[in-house]
């Protein structure tokens, strides 16, 4: 290993968006440091944020499992009743031969959110219990890749839009999964508000 050459020359940080080198300053709790040139977020000081993130993401996992498997809503039209969960919706699209469509929905609302939650939980648990681990950097890179494609919150808004569209034509019973997805959306926002990826990277010391 060529260790000495890889060390940061000083404790400088570079802005992610404009590459400007800056010296970190001390922040009050909950404060953000912004780039002085482009106003981009540089880093944040949030004491205890990892514990909060862990609590929120544990809650999100439970709600996610309910949200995927239980019915989102039940529809009644002249005595006929249909109900659908996220899982059965994807299954039906697949059976109808709409493979691309089914894969797109399954990936962005089930597979990638599941990956995001699993990775987030394992990283937070590993940091809490062992402080360092060699596979944490790999998991964090995976998280960086998966995050933009995990779209549960958008799916939830889509359900609300569908709800309003259907309210005119049929009787609707809202299922437990709708509440779960809504709750998961709140928890995911809370999780990402209490830590950011940069903050997690700071917990990993250069090897």
């Amino acid at each position, binding site marked *: 290993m060529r260790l000495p050459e890889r060390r940061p020359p000083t404790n400088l940080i570079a802005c992610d968006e404009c590459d400007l080198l800056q010296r970190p300053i001390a922040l009050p709790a909950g404060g953000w440091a912004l780039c002085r040139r482009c106003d981009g977020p540089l880093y944040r000081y949030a004491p205890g944020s990892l514990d909060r993130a862990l609590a929120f993401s544990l809650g999100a996992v439970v709600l996610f499992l309910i949200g995927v498997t239980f019915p989102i809503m039940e529809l009644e039209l002249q005595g006929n009743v249909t109900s659908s969960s996220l899982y059965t919706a994807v299954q039906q699209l697949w059976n109808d031969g709409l493979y691309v469509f089914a894969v797109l929905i399954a990936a962005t609302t089930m597979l990638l959110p599941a990956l995001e939650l699993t990775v987030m939980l394992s990283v937070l648990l590993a940091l809490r219990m062992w402080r360092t681990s060699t596979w944490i950097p790999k998991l964090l890179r995976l998280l960086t890749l998966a995050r933009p494609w995990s779209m549960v919150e958008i*799916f939830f808004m889509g359900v609300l839009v569908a709800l309003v569209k259907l309210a005119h034509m049929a009787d609707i019973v809202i299922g437990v999964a709708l509440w779960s997805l809504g709750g998961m959306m709140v928890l995911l926002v809370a999780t990402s508000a209490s830590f950011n990826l940069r903050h997690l990277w700071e917990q990993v010391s250069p090897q």
Partner: protein
Amino acid sequence: MRPSPSTAKALGLYACHTCGLVSRPAREGASSCGRCGSSLRFRKTNSIERASAYLVAAYILYIPANVLPIMETQSVLGREENTIVSGVAYLWHSGSWLLALVVFIASIVVPVLKLLAMTLLLITAHYQSGWRPLERTKLYRLVELVGRWSMLDVYVVAILAALVQFHPLATVTPRSGAVYFGAVVVLSMLSAMAFDPRLIWDPTQKVSRTHE
């Protein structure tokens, strides 16, 4: 704040694009980040070329996404094909103005503005323009933030198709427009990811480039 601030690249330092660690390049061979193992580079590789390729593909698919129906409604009253625009019009006429506004913004305004914004960013970056870098950076930030929300309509179609299965009273079937629309969203997200916002600031950097 003066004398003129320096970027990592101008000093020959790598700021890791994955984890942000600032480090010196290794003396021989390709460098990789000492913290996360990503390969180090000053700017995203072929950023403008890759972002443009995704963008052109998104423009092309934007046409079938809007012309072709995204779903088909079959009821006792007959058969009806809905495009994205007609879906918004339906919501508006049925009195759900707030929702019509949300869907209008998410599935018409955002995709169009996103494609135009990426075009502007790519052209100015290609010609190394020093025009309003702060505003362009904010535009890029906005594109990254709201671009995903265009998936909304794709999900609405999927949910309607899953629930409205009352043969022969009423059924909803997804049509190919929805797939094209999803592809436009994915491609424009890929374009924004491939674009390197650092390129916006490079022309404003008047430091001598001794390390290139």
